[in-house]
């Protein structure tokens, strides 16, 4: 007789005061007005904070159901889940929801309040100090459901120093409207510890209604402190943006500089080699996901050599089938490599499709680290900068230290003379093309966390990288570095001043003017052509 047993259970639950309280608390979420729903989330958080661990665990389950859009409302009764699989939100016992139970509509304000309430309740429920510390940092930003009652209860129960280190300043920050001026000053200092524009705005808004002169003075001092930090942060942010843009340009241009500099071959398929590198990384990702799922976070690193080799192979094949037959005919190579680029784009389009590829984003390319003021180091760009730096150092060493590098430099300076000295110029060309295309493959891996990976991605890079190579001086690696830094930095400085469209125009005009004054580029190659 399961039905009768259920009825008895229900009766017992309805009879208990705890159930009645919980039914009221969870039922309040079904209120029609948004403000009431937000208040209900706050009330749930407070009930959990003051009612002991069980109550907190129950409240968190309900709050998380709100955030997961699993809450259903029938009249003023809340259910978690749908139809027969539903749970009564008050008892968490299975209780089929009525057919007319409607999902609780959830918008961003409710989600913010739910996230705040869930974080507050985590302080009381979770036994992991790390999870509590994370919840405490979430509360710093999300205070929609936080009250002093909750915070004091949390401070009383908390023993872990890492969590206390977050909660205590948070308690101080909550005193911004306290009647005691000393507490207000402490609140201002606590807020100003994190020097962001957002916090400056908080202090400024509080000061606009402040009558006490000592608090005013403290506030002004704190704002001046934040202003200095923000100014530093802005300069750093501009430099970083420029550096990251420069690293992208350099990655795209490095291989081109080698091929163009050595053989005078204008390789219009260089952008597509980048695309091939990115697609190879995608295949590596899928292979690792299927074979070694434990290593999935490291697929970008594993893909580096593989993408290099795949792109290098395509480059060598292109050399053997196309370029070898067209040496000393630069216009023909230009057209032929363009044809190769179209061929590669359409080959990928037909076989894999035009959609953007989905890349797993490992932890080291997601999010950013706040440094000073509002300056955030975004990790995906840091990854690209690191790869660009490594690729550049590697290429310089290769060209300066190895025999192959010496051969490349010799052929680049004087092809006939190098041949006479016993260097196999054709062999050197082949290896240099492999190196140049392989570098583009590396660029593909480094750019995958930054850009959309699709068959057309290469087209966006080819113009920029030619600009870098020509501006830097044909075949000069130092020139390529200087040119990418110059273009990157100028772009980033112009953008906020004149807008992104004008910045592009200005950069192109500057490049034209520069090339007219100095056609050989920043660093002129020495040697006979």
């Amino acid at each position: 007789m399961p039905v009768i047993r259920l009825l008895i259970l229900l009766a017992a639950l309805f009879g208990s005061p705890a159930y009645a309280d919980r039914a009221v608390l969870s039922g309040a979420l079904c209120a029609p007005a948004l403000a009431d729903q937000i208040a209900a989330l706050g009330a749930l958080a407070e009930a959990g904070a003051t009612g002991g661990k069980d109550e907190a665990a129950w409240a968190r389950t309900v709050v998380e159901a709100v955030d997961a859009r699993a809450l259903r409302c029938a009249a003023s009764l809340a259910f978690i889940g749908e139809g027969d699989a539903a749970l009564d939100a008050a008892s968490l016992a299975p209780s089929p929801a009525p057919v007319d139970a409607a999902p609780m509509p959830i918008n961003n304000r409710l989600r913010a309040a739910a996230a705040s309430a869930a974080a507050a309740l985590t302080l009381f429920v979770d036994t992991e100090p790390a999870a509590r510390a994370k919840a405490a940092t979430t509360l710093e930003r999300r205070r929609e459901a936080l009250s002093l009652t909750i915070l004091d209860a949390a401070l009383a129960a908390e023993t872990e120093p890492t969590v206390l280190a977050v909660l205590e300043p948070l308690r101080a920050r909550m005193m911004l409207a306290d009647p005691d001026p000393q507490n207000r000053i402490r609140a201002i200092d606590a807020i100003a510890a994190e020097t962001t524009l957002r916090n400056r705005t908080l202090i400024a808004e509080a000061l606009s209604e402040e009558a006490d002169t000592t608090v005013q003075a403290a506030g002004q001092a704190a704002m001046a402190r934040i202003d200095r930090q923000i100014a530093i942060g802005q300069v750093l942010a501009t430099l970083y943006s420029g550096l990251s843009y420069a690293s992208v340009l350099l990655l795209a241009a490095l291989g081109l500089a080698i091929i163009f500099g050595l053989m005078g071959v204008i390789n219009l398929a260089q952008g597509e080699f980048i695309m091939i590198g990115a697609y190879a990384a995608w295949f590596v990702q899928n292979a690792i996901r299927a074979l070694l799922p434990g290593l999935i976070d490291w697929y970008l690193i594993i893909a580096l050599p593989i993408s290099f080799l795949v792109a290098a192979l395509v480059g060598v094949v292109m050399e053997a089938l196309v370029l070898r037959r067209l040496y000393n005919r630069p216009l023909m190579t230009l057209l032929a490599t363009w044809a190769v680029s179209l061929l590669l784009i359409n080959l990928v389009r037909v076989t894999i499709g035009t959609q953007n590829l989905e890349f797993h984003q490992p932890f080291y390319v997601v999010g950013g680290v706040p440094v000073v003021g509002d300056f955030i180091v975004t990790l995906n760009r840091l990854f690209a900068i690191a790869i660009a730096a490594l690729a550049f150092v590697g290429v310089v060493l290769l060209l300066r230290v190895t025999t192959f590098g010496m051969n490349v430099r010799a052929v680049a300076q004087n092809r006939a003379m190098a041949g006479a000295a016993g260097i196999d110029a054709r062999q050197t060309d082949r290896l240099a093309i492999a190196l140049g295309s392989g570098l583009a493959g590396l660029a593909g891996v480094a750019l995958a966390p930054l850009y959309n990976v699709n068959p057309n991605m290469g087209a966006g890079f080819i113009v920029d990288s030619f600009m870098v190579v020509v501006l830097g001086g044909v075949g000069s690696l130092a020139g390529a570095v200087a040119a990418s830094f110059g273009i990157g930095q100028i772009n980033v400085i112009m953008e906020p001043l004149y807008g992104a469209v004008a910045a592009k125009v200005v950069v192109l005009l500057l490049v034209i003017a520069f090339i007219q004054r100095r056609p050989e580029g920043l660093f002129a190659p020495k040697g006979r052509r």
Partner: protein
Amino acid sequence: MTLGLTRRRLLKTAGASLLGVGAASFPMPGLIRSARAADTVKLGCLFSSSGAMANVEGRLTSVVRMAAEELNAKGGVMGRTVEVVGTDPASDWPLYAQLSRQLIEQDQVAALFGCWTSVSRKSVLPVVEQSDALLYYPLHFEGEENSKNVVYLNSPPSSSVLPAVEYLMGPDGGEAKRFFMLGSDYVWPRTINQQLKGYWASKGIPETDWREEYVPVGHSNFQTLVNQIREFADQPGGQPVVVLTVVGNSIPDFFREFANQGISALDVPVLGLDALEADFEGLDTAALAGHLNCWAYLQTAKGPANDAFKAAWAKHVADTGVPYRGDVAIDPMVSVYDGVHLWALAAEKAGSFAVPEVRAASPSVSFACPSGYEIAMMADSTYVKRGVFIGSLNETQGFDVLWQSEGTPDPLPFSPYMKA
């Protein structure tokens, strides 16, 4: 009148007759085609499968094919088999005009389905007006145009963007007070923003509470702009919102940078006016949940028509092996699907494929759109009345319905807010 058949003259005549043959042979394929067209009727598609728009635009040709198959399965339109002629304008705006002329004159299509960006529509407009053809345009757009040769299947701002912005300014939407407009630099974003500014001015919002920035089409480096947005959002004055009108591949690039700089939708929601499920295919949306879009259809719309449409699309993808995701359905796909069916219904009603008669019959037919609304063309313009959805991005790259309109509001081709 002597027979002065000199060598020179002979050559001349021969040359002329050769030329004549050449000229005559040129329209021959057209003749052959129209002879074969006795039992088929053709629909032309103008959707790029290469270039900047390929990622989203390409799949619409497949949808037209799918809708044509549905019509053919029921015996075609007036007994004629529907044949779809696909093209690739390569995201190159003038090429849309050239290919539309080719489709009209050479392939003699009964109707055109095409264009995504407004600039491509504007480039096709003179062609369809000159030869009195019919273009079914599936995107929501800036309005300010009313040509009898274009059927506007989707909404102008008056019945899509303004309701969405009104929602964001209301208590449920977060009482937005300050607006950062970021768009690609062309006609659609500029006109939308112009109308938005007029609208806000009419609501008494001061000019200092909004900012307007544009990037080149295809722009991908959003670092500086996201920095600017952060700065704008952290200033005092109330809840900030980003109204995003960048298009194509700039959309995922923008959102990637936005999430990486740690800005949450709960603090600064982005209303992506051109943002679609497909734009988030390569992104981790857990960090982006809560951003908004507004369209006349969302994949999560409830109803049997939507279930049938999604099942048909999944089957079409599986059967034909086209490289698109069978489980992603986006508004322009549904709009172009509606367009094919509206055209077929109107042609059946008119009993003719001639453009003036199809157009005259159009307002009197309606179609059960997968969005759940019964849609029909206006009587006094060639705009189609659609429902409005506001979507909220969820963790699984889809948009949940946050709000939807009661019925299908009347679209206003010309906005009263343009003067501001």
